[in-house]
């Protein structure tokens, strides 16, 4: 019944208008080319005051949205090694709380993000807490041993450094400004001495020579 000549179709193609023996274009075996030349050129865009004003509005809106607090940037990826300069390149997304305050009455309660920042960081670090004090205490002891000569210069800094570490471990609400205050008061960054432990070691050996 079907037109045996032109493949196995379910209807005879004379009905749709393809005559017998006519040349059909070859069947496509690949996707159509990208950007083919168009037979009909497209109509030009609407120009005029209204179109231009709406264009300006659109671009301004886009720019404004990028500056609003609704534009959420993901946290910066962690670098492989902690660098000295990290402390001075404060990333923009360090606070976990929203920078705008929605009306929580019309939002589900579970979406509320707790605002106490150090507390959140420390509460996430709670499982690691048992390990941390031991490591830190060892560091403190080592620091004390190697920096005995530096007591005069480093005593105030050390005291703050020691205070800083227990502060970090405590889960109770320490305010952010305390940490920053300590960091801001001195000219030297706390971790300066952490990295350079051989500094004190050298001075141990060369007691006779003056230290420049």
């Amino acid at each position, binding site marked *: *019944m*079907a*037109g045996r000549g032109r493949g196995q*179709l*379910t*209807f*005879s193609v004379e*009905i*749709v*208008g*393809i005559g017998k023996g006519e040349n059909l274009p070859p069947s496509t075996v690949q996707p159509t080319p990208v950007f083919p030349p168009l*037979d*009909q050129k*497209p*109509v030009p*865009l*609407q120009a005029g005051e*209204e*179109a231009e*004003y*709406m*264009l300006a*509005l*659109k*671009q301004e*809106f*886009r720019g*404004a*949205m990028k500056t*609003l607090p*609704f*534009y*959420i*940037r*993901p*946290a910066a990826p962690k670098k492989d090694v902690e660098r000295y300069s990290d402390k001075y390149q404060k990333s923009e997304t360090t606070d*976990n709380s*929203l920078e705008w305050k*929605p*009306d929580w*009455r*019309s*939002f*589900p*309660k*579970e*979406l*509320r*993000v707790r605002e106490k920042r150090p507390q959140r960081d420390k509460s996430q670090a709670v499982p690691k807490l048992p390990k941390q004090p031991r490591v830190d205490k060892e560091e403190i002891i080592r620091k004390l041993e190697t920096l005995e000569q530096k007591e005069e210069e480093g005593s105030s800094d050390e005291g703050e450094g020691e205070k800083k570490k227990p502060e970090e471990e405590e889960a109770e609400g320490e305010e952010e400004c305390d940490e920053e205050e300590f960091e801001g008061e001195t000219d030297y960054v706390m971790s300066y001495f952490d990295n350079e432990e051989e500094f004190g070691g050298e001075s141990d050996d060369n007691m006779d020579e003056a230290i420049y």
Partner: protein
Amino acid sequence: MTTQEVRLCGLLLQEHFGDVVEKVGTHLIRSGVLNLRALALETKLALDLVKKSLCVLVQHGMCTFGAGRRGPAGPVEYRISCERIIHMLRYPRYIYTAKSLYGDTGELIVEEILQRGQMTMSSTVKTVADRLTHNMPEGQSMDYSEVVSAFSQLVETHFLQRCPPVASAGPSDSGAVDPPPPAVTPSEPENHPDCYRVPYINLTGKGKRRRSSEDGEADQRAAKKAKTDNDECGDEGIFWQVNFERFHLHFRDQAIINAVSCKLDQTSSEIVRTMLRMSEVTTPANAAFTQALSANEIFRALPSNYNIARPILDQYLTLLVDDPMEFVGKTGDSGGGMYVVNLHRALANLARATLESVVQERFGSRSARIFRLLLRKRHLEQKQVEDFAMIPAKEAKDMLYTLLSENLVQLQEIPKTPDHAPSRTFYLYTVNQLPTARLLLQHCYKTVGNLIERRLYETKENKRLLEKSQRIEAILASLQATGAETTQLTEVEEMITAPERQQLESLRHHINKLDSSENQVDETIFLLESYITSTQASR
């Protein structure tokens, strides 16, 4: 949700809210309804980020939440509405409409509320007054009362509405020791009786001019003071959002009026505009036609600068009724003749005109002739198409097959015998307007997606150049502020070489073109969407 819609939503979310919200939003669209835990688990993002993204989406009205399948005791489930996200394409058009109706003040009010999703009246008034004062010449400032009046006008004409209050599940204000309801469900905004009631706020003062020489701290202090001032204004907790439906009705009316003025003349379009304006409040949103208006009423309501005589008005109305586009229909003879505007039919005709124009621009005027023929005559055989369209057989065949391969034309089999023998079956070509409109709508979504992606690609390719030019502009601005000499300025300007300048210029030109195209495609999207919703509502 179709693939193209999901893709477009993802691109829009990424542009306006960042990658995190895009990931959360796209995943929620694909999965339908999810609760917070499941969402965080499946997107593998930090719970905090997911919470923030959901807050942003709820604030902008794109995500709704409600008690889940396990009832009020179970976790809250979130649902995203795709069409609200796609409405973001139309924001410039909303702002421009507000400007044309209510001036600069209205424009800024709508822009602020669109940027922030929901706002209280007092904060809107203050921000807008400050912005207007900033643009005014020295010494002048914008009074709050003017902004308040513009705001009230927007609310009266229903362009702004209150955000729906969230109905709590239990009697929380009885003061009893009830456990607080874990989930709260917002209701429809229209159901609230006070939806369009402007609250009384005691807000007096003028906009503050922000001096550029002031320290950033002073601004922060002022901002904090503004927040505490909020509590004294008396409209705590009353948030306002833009009423998109009302804007859409306005656009639809505009489209009809433009069509009438193109087809007939200016006076007829004024008559139709008057009729639409009179029936604004009485016609429900998706009605097929407006309320019946008598010719006497229309005559009285015509604007005064159109002093046409009563018999002339009757002639115009008869012309409108007899027009094959059927914009206006006559439903009775009392009161000098009862007339309605056929909204659904007008939208259908506009959609049909869009389809025909697309076929014409894509495939040529002869294919368009075949298309129009099939729309009018519904079903035609191959031979009949050739005869009616007066096109030679070979070319007609070619065009029909092209249209068929693009799915704009369908083939309908009508068997003569129960065994569907091909030699004894009629094969008829046909065009169905509604499915074709849907197809075209999906093409439009894909087009806008492509435009956005191309724009992002162009920006990325020339990122280095754009950053360089931004830096140089910043340097120039700071130099000018500190009063540098012209030699220094020219030196800085010359840091961008001439070919780079040319490249920048052409880049700007491309991006402007792509943005304009998006706006224009959005007009077609609006028309097709309105037609489809109207058809579904009238079924």
